[in-house]
């Protein structure tokens, strides 16, 4: 069990835990506002990786020697930690993947291949990142299943949930949706969506890439069948990710990758497979990555995700208020209830020109479609400029961004 979170947080001290943030870009202090793409790693995570590589590394699950035992303990310990982190009933429900994208592809390939047939419907939303859209397009092509979408309201970026009843027909076998939109910040009522899916017998999948490191998550409270997230968006290394699957569903799913680690016995003709989660982890896994993920979880839990959420929310609101004061700037997405990002367009500057301009002042923003091409099309925008925050960002940085945006407006205006 992790230690209880302290009463108050010294955010400035936390910031000092991130070596990468202590640098200047072209003579200006780095302002890193691209956290929705990838967050930075604290020293605690970097140290854990280094310690593991210097002392404990070996392959897992098969060596009968000391290092292999240590590595296996570390790897399986990380699995236990992830299970607690998201409120899973047991660690066997946690499959390690390379990230959210691979987790979703796993479901599409394994569950989808077994349970979907021509005429079935996969229900998605218009808010989805390409990684929660393209795997289903591929699956639909293979199986003859059809895709259907919950529309997004152009005015405020929320889903048209009043249409859910009409869309969730008995042909819907799977309902996959994002928790927080990476493009415009909408937070979806995931528990309500999972309930609605279950009511028609559909399996639910939550894309938690933007939420896992930002707010407390409990898969049993949410009531989802699957939930996917990435380590690198929550202070862990890249190449780490998690698929949570409810035990009784994972048990019914066939392997999707074949190889070592996932088998019980192999003859030249045929193999039998391990139970979940190992059935879905063929080959040597990202062992040190899992160690880093566990260290990141410890780090985040010391702060407390409820506190992180409150901090990020205050920062985001501050940014929204400031942006509203700049004429010619339009902020997209919901006014309230939003994730830790602001996505906006500036009349006088294209997102890529604005992003280049900001970069010259040491401000890392993201300009473009954010892997949300269909959403951008719906909003009739070629793209947006996005500032996405994490707990190590400060109000002073948001104020500095506003100065840079005003300067950009003068420059391009």
């Amino acid at each position, binding site marked *: 069990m992790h230690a209880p979170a302290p009463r108050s947080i010294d955010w400035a001290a936390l910031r000092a835990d991130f070596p990468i943030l202590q640098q200047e870009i072209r003579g200006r202090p780095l302002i890193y506002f691209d956290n929705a793409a990838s967050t930075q790693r604290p020293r605690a995570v970097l140290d854990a990786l280094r310690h593991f590589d210097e002392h404990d590394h070996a392959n897992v699950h098969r060596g009968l020697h000391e290092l292999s035992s240590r590595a296996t303990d570390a790897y399986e310990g990380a699995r236990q930690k992830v299970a607690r982190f998201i409120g899973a009933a047991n660690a066997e429900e946690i499959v390690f993947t390379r990230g959210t994208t691979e987790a979703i592809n796993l479901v599409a390939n394994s569950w989808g291949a077994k349970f979907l047939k021509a005429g079935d419907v996969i229900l998605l939303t218009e808010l989805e990142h390409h990684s929660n859209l393209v795997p289903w397009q591929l699956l639909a092509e293979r199986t003859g299943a059809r895709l259907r979408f919950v529309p997004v309201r152009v005015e405020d970026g929320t889903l048209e949930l009043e249409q859910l009843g009409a869309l969730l027909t008995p042909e819907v076998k799977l309902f996959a949706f994002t928790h927080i939109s990476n493009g415009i910040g909408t937070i979806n009522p995931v528990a309500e969506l999972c309930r609605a899916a279950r009511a028609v017998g559909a399996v639910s999948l939550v894309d938690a890439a933007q939420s896992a490191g930002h707010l407390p998550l409990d898969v049993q409270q949410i009531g989802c069948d699957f939930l996917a997230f990435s380590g690198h968006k929550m202070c862990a290394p890249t190449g780490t990710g998690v698929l949570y699957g409810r035990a009784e569903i994972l048990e019914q799913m066939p392997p999707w990758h074949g190889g070592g680690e996932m088998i019980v016995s192999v003859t030249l003709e045929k193999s039998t497979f391990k139970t979940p989660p190992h059935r879905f982890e063929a080959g040597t896994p990202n062992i040190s990555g899992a160690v880093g993920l566990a260290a990141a979880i410890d780090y985040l839990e010391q702060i407390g995700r409820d506190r992180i959420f409150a901090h990020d929310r205050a920062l985001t609101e501050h940014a929204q208020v400031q942006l509203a004061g700049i004429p010619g700037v339009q902020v997209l997405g919901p006014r309230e209830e939003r994730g830790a990002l602001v996505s906006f367009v500036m009349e006088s500057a294209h*997102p*890529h020109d604005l992003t280049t301009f900001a970069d*010259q002042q040491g401000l890392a923003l993201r*300009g473009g479609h954010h892997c949300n091409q269909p959403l951008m099309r719906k909003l009739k*925008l070629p793209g947006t400029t996005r500032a996405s925050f994490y707990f190590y960002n400060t109000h002073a940085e948001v104020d500095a961004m506003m100065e840079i945006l005003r300067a950009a407006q003068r420059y391009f205006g």
Partner: protein
Amino acid sequence: MNAELDELYQQVLLDHAKRPRNFGEIAEGAVHVHGDNPSCGDEIHLHVRFGEDRGVEEIKFTGHGCAISLASASLMTMKLRGRTAAEATALATALRELVTTEVAEPTAALGDLRVLGGVRKFPQRVKCAMLPWRAFEQAQAGNAGSGRVSTEA
């Protein structure tokens, strides 16, 4: 602001981005190429009418994009109208060299196009500057009708 940025966004470039020249379509007899840059959503619809000898008789464009791609398209249309096939090809080659390699003395023939040289310091933006030119090369290669070109293809 810093020098590199000012070299990228020279006044001439910003002026062409804000008031693109030859912005429009050619009603008849033109080759049409749709160019896009899917990573940033830039799109250009290029219309070129070639003469008997494949010289550029008329050239126009529509579309939307960042300052660099719009200015590049605008400057390109001004430069290419009335050029022979060989001259147009040489300009396309010189432009590509200008934005991708360290050239001591850019070809004088490039004229105003030399403002695009600032892109060289911004490798992520080279494809913005090249998009209209790639569309033009596609138009040159095709005989008639419509074509497509994409920065990601």
